[in-house]
């Protein structure tokens, strides 16, 4: 009996995890109805803190990007979510099954972030702000981006000076502040920053960083200023010197229309329209996610970046892994122990942590291409694993093989090269291939250090099209294709290594 009860309890939990204990029917009248609900927020924003205070008993779900937030609400994982009102307006314009719930929750001032010692730069920005307020330019900008929903960047000449100003932004933040349109950064923030560049006579370089890593990037001098949409809060003030507010931003709750009681329910006719044709739906998704605004370029770029990072970190990792393996098997204690420590350390560190450490600590004050950082971090990780694979492979070869070579008159290295190595390669390739594929998939976290890889490209597109599923599926398919292609390549190399034996065993 008890067993049965336990199983049914488990099943219930599982079912609710899958379906979510989602609200059935139009049950949300006001924000108060969320007391025990699930509320999505962007991680690390003031929305998150607000939600925790306002609905202490609710489940607060944290998401990394606005598109994830949207996805959560649309798929019923969250009953409602909080988002900045200007961006929300854009989002609602493209998703007619969503609506705002209740009144504005809070209004927060936004500011550009600097390090405290950058007083000069900060006051320059404040002066700039005062100027554009005075001559009405700011009002015009707010009107164009916020009220009219504009999507075209005005032509602002880049400063002729050579001095570079690196500004951290979140490229998939979303309109009206910052988004990639036609592969060009567009939005209120970008116009403001471009104009500031012109004002101070500096060339602006945008660095795309996850919002959560923004402050770390500023502190470690990866960037000179935070240009992302960041609310001024007392906590952040401890780390960041903010400019005067350049915008006052509100935030609202939004939810699926069908869950909001006060709204007229979307008629069933709507679903007829949705279901007009599955194929037509796909064609439309294809058009908006790939063709529109030349988004395919973004994907191509991302695909290339993922490929480059995967292949080069595998190469680096293999070479370095071979070296570490050599050290690990050396007769010298120093080498053996240090290789052992290296292996355990790297295998014990989550790759994401390793990636951040390399980027924000090791190369903190070096201006280095983040792709290179990714190659180094993944290469180090791969080295630790491949070193152990190599060692197991080499140690798995019977000592007699080496002895036969030596006894025949080969030198030690020649014996290794002609006899041990080929057998080792034959043995380890299956494991090595598996490790390589997981490396390819592992690279999808490089977004954390401002690299636009395939995953990030998908996120950026999602942030523009607010299509919850198509970009994800497309990205998944592309990863699959990439893994498959690389696998075939490895198999080809494998075939070249032992052509005779392979043919024979196949024929036999």
């Amino acid at each position, binding site marked *: 009996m008890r067993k049965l009860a336990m199983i049914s309890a488990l099943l219930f939990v599982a079912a609710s995890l899958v379906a979510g204990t989602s609200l059935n029917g139009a049950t949300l009248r006001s924000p108060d109805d969320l007391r025990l609900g699930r509320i999505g927020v962007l991680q690390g924003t003031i929305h998150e803190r607000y939600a925790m205070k306002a609905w202490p008993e609710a489940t607060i779900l944290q998401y990394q990007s606005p598109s994830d937030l949207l996805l959560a609400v649309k798929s019923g994982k969250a009953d409602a979510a909080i988002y900045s009102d200007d961006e929300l307006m854009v989002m609602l314009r493209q998703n007619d099954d969503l609506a705002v719930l209740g009144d504005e929750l809070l209004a927060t001032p936004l500011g550009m972030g600097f390090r405290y010692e950058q007083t000069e730069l900060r006051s320059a920005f404040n002066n700039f702000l005062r100027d554009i307020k005075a001559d009405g330019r700011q009002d015009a900008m707010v009107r164009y981006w916020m009220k009219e929903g504009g999507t075209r960047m005005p032509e602002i000449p880049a400063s002729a000076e050579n001095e570079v100003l690196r500004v951290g932004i979140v490229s998939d933040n979303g309109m009206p502040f910052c988004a990639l349109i036609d592969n060009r950064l567009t939005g209120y923030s970008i116009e403001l920053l471009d104009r500031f560049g012109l004002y101070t006579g500096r060339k602006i370089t945008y660095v795309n960083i996850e919002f959560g890593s923004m402050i770390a990037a500023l502190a470690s001098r990866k960037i000179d200023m935070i240009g992302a949409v960041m609310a001024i809060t007392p906590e952040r003030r401890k780390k960041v010197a903010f400019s005067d507010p350049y915008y006052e931003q509100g935030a609202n709750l939004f939810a699926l229309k069908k869950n909001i009681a006060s709204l007229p329910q979307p008629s069933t006719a709507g679903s007829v329209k949705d279901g007009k044709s599955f194929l037509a739906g796909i064609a439309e998704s294809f058009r908006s996610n790939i063709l529109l605004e030349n988004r395919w370029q973004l994907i191509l770029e991302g695909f290339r970046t993922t490929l480059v990072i995967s292949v080069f970190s595998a190469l680096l990792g293999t070479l370095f892994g071979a070296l570490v393996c050599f050290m690990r098997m050396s007769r010298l204690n120093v080498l053996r122990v240090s290789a052992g420590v290296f292996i355990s350390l790297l295998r014990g560190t989550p790759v994401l942590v390793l990636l951040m450490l390399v980027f924000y600590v090791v190369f903190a004050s070096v201006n280095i291409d983040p792709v290179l950082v990714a190659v180094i971090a993944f290469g180090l990780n791969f080295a630790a694993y491949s070193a152990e694979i190599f060692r197991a492979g080499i140690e798995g070869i019977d000592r007699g*093989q080496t002895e036969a070579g030596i006894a025949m008159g*080969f030198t030690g290295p020649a014996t290794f090269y002609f006899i041990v190595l080929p057998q080792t390669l034959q043995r380890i390739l299956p494991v090595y291939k598996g490790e390589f594929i997981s490396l390819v998939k592992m690279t999808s976290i490089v977004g954390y250090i401002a690299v636009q890889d395939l995953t990030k490209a998908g996120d950026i597109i999602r942030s523009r099209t607010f299509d919850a599923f198509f970009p994800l599926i497309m990205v998944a398919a592309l990863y699959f294709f990439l893994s498959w292609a690389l696998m075939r390549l490895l198999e080809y190399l494998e075939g070249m290594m032992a052509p005779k034996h392979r043919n024979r065993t196949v024929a036999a």
Partner: protein
Amino acid sequence: MIQIKHLSKKFGALEVLRDVSITVRKGEVISIIGPSGTGKSTFLRCINLLDRPSGGSIVINGVDILDPKADVPAIRRKMNMVFQSFNLYQHLSVMDNLTLGPVKLLQTGRQEAEKKALELLKLVGLAEKADSFPDELSGGQKQRVAIARCLAMEPSIILFDEPTSALDPTMVSEVLAVIRRLARDGMTMLIVTHEMKFARDVSSRVLYMDEGVIYEEGPPEQIFDNPQKERTKIFINRVRSFNYRIASPDYDLYAMNAEIELFCEKQILPLKSRQSLQLLVEEVLQICADTLRSTAIELAITHSEKTGEIKLLVESGGAEENILESAALPDELGLTIIRNLTRSIAYKRDGGQNRLTLILKEQ
């Protein structure tokens, strides 16, 4: 060709070789015999420096190989080794196993090396296996390929470390035949082996190793038929005889038969002799069934390589009696069989023991 003086080898505190000195001349075939663990393999491995000696000197063709300046790989090329476990290169075909050394080390052209390899494979009777891989060969075939691989390097000395110990008994002779042929052709060889008959036939000199030294050395006739020293005698006798103790009438007939079989295989006795021997032993024990209730019986079988004579010795304690005469069985069947199988039966009371000696008829 090889002069070894005061060679010693320690593994940590374990002193495996203490003081080994020997000179090997060109064309000699030297068998090395001795109990397990006395350093026979270690001795061979020291000669080509697979194990580094702890002391002494080894001079090969006038070169002191322990001199740090000596080109050891070059010396090894002239002195190849055949291992107990074959050690064929697993990733290479038989042909490539044979050509790898010549092509990479002797700078022989590939075509020439392959031609030579094919000749050698013919020599060991495996030409049709040239394209096979080691894991497709039987143990005996592997070892013959290993010998051919060795010959491909055109060595002037070959070291064999128990070349047949890892083989099924049925495959021993094919490998030994190849080595015999090399001996006939005048190859200089050092062979560690447990095949006594083979050692006797093939060697010009036999080394008996024990306690980390060459305990006795001499021509095969001396070592096998007339060993001079105590330990050699014991060893030779033990190798040549089979001893089995039976302490109850419910003895395990099949376990004993299996051991007799093993002994016969080692002695390379013909199938007919094996069957006769098993029958003889079973009949004797049948007759002894009563005796076994009160006392144990010691069986010993010996085989003389020189005369080919197979002798069964039955020893029992208890009161003086010739068990064959006190037969407790209702009929004479067993006794008839015993009489017909043997050439002579002798009974003797000796040192409080009944000792029955039966000599098998020539088959």
